């Protein structure tokens, strides 16, 4: 049973049939999946959802598949953790971490979008898939394509972290590094999608792909006991995730599964790539592209396609946005690890650092139920943190004793 009417332009409302398509052919804006919410509300309830397995397919009526999913079956269902120790450091009582650094199969929130996109590629009978990526999407598309038996062509900037390249190539994907930054890679990918009859997940599968991100929001609400948080802090690269979390919460409200959603959206970027936070701080929705220079490479999109929509929703929900320097990003990664035992990638450091600022600025109140979105795993970006070398000793008890008594330097 399907609940999808078709696709609809987010800006001009023009309707399209369900197919692989990059954007509105009239005004070029992104397309949204148009669901039959009345029909969904008749079959979906809190009880129905709660009785299903703990993965993103428990919300399947709100995802744009028309067949049973064949891959990504374990994606989603990640922990929401009460972060008391981090909350104490930041001076906030009701703090939670939504931890997609342990998502399946590739340890980032991109497993949510890929789960939808690769299944959609199979439904459309596409012979290969591809994407432009800052790393996490590359890992995820390569892994899911492998499990679907589809060839994958992955385009990445030439200077991407080694671990992210290894974690893509291992799946047998054709990895192509492109001389240039992500925005150059993305432009090339958009042009290739015009020439090759494949499913480029962030181009012609984009209307479907983005829907996977909604499950990040559904899960937060369900895990809070069917409550929407007062505030949520989300890292922004292209700007899509924050908008889809909001869409997910509003859908649950529309279906009567949540009371009125008053969640304020807070966006986080790196200082060296802050086109969306700059717009928000100017009180504008006009995105001025930048040339990225940041250790948070997964967020290094200087020309964010959903930036306008993200900035608009941040303003609409009375949220805010801020950015963090490379040093603050490294400190943020370390703070999260040392207080909550979660090793996040550089984007997580950005989000922690920005949350700290937002609380200090009084933009997030100390009694706001706040969720921080952690979207990727620290093992992918080990170079983002500089740690002291471990102490080396002989295999002798007295050597260890000296370490334990704080005399390490004399060993």
């Amino acid at each position, binding site marked *: 049973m399907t609940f999808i009417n078709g696709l609809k332009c987010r800006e001009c409302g023009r309707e399209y049939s369900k197919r692989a398509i990059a954007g509105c052919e009239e005004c*070029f804006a992104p397309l949204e999946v148009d669901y039959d919410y009345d029909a969904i509300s008749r079959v979906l309830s809190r009880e129905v959802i709660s009785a299903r397995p703990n993965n993103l397919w428990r919300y399947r009526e709100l995802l744009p598949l028309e067949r049973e999913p064949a891959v990504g079956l374990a994606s989603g269902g990640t922990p929401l953790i009460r972060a008391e120790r981090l909350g104490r450091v930041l001076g906030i009582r009701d703090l939670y971490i939504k931890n997609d650094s342990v998502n399946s199969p590739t340890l980032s929130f991109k497993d949510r979008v890929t789960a939808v996109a690769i299944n959609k590629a199979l439904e459309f009978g596409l012979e290969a898939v591809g994407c432009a990526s800052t790393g996490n999407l590359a890992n995820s598309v390569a892994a899911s394509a492998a499990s679907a038996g589809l060839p994958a062509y992955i385009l990445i900037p030439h200077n991407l972290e080694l671990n992210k390249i290894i974690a893509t190539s291992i799946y047998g994907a054709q990895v192509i590094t492109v001389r240039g930054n992500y925005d150059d890679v993305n432009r090339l990918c958009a042009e290739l999608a015009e020439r090759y009859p494949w499913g480029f997940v962030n181009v012609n599968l984009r209307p479907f792909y983005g829907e996977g991100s909604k499950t990040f929001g559904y899960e937060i609400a369900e895990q809070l006991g069917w409550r929407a948080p007062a505030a949520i802090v989300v890292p922004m690269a292209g700007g899509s995730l924050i908008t889809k979390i909001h869409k997910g919460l509003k859908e649950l409200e529309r279906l009567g599964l949540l009371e009125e959603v008053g969640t304020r959206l807070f966006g986080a970027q790196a200082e060296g790539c802050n086109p969306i936070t700059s717009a928000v701080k100017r009180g504008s929705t006009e995105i001025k592209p930048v040339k990225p220079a940041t250790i948070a490479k997964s967020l290094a999109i200087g020309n964010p396609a959903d930036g306008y929509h993200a900035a608009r929703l941040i303003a609409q929900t009375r949220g805010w946005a801020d950015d963090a320097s490379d040093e603050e990003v490294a400190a943020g990664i370390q703070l999260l690890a040392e207080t909550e035992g979660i090793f996040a990638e550089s984007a997580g450091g950005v989000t922690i650092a920005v949350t700290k600022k937002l609380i200090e600025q009084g933009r997030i109140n100390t009694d706001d139920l706040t969720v921080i979105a952690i979207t990727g795993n620290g093992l992918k970006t080990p170079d983002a943190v500089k740690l002291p070398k471990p102490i080396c000793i002989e295999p002798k008890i007295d050597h260890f004793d000296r370490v334990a008594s704080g005399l390490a330097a004399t060993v």
Partner: protein
Amino acid sequence: MSIKLTIPTALRKITRDADVVEAEPGTVREIIASLDESFHGFGSRICEDEDKLRRFINIYVDGEDIRFLDNLSTRVRDGAELAIVLAIAGG
């Protein structure tokens, strides 16, 4: 010599299915105006007004986004390649 402009699928109804069209050198604004004469409606499809591209479309001159150059006043030299590309998602 002339300059070559790559046209995305969404605009090919206007360019009578051509995926590449040619134009004489000039500023991006002049090139769009001249193409609007050959392909009626071309200008209004990609520009909100004379001074502004539509929000979800980007123009590149030899691979560089014109917003990093001189926007619609960017001079396009003979032999250059222009591309009109939809803004797309990423990560």
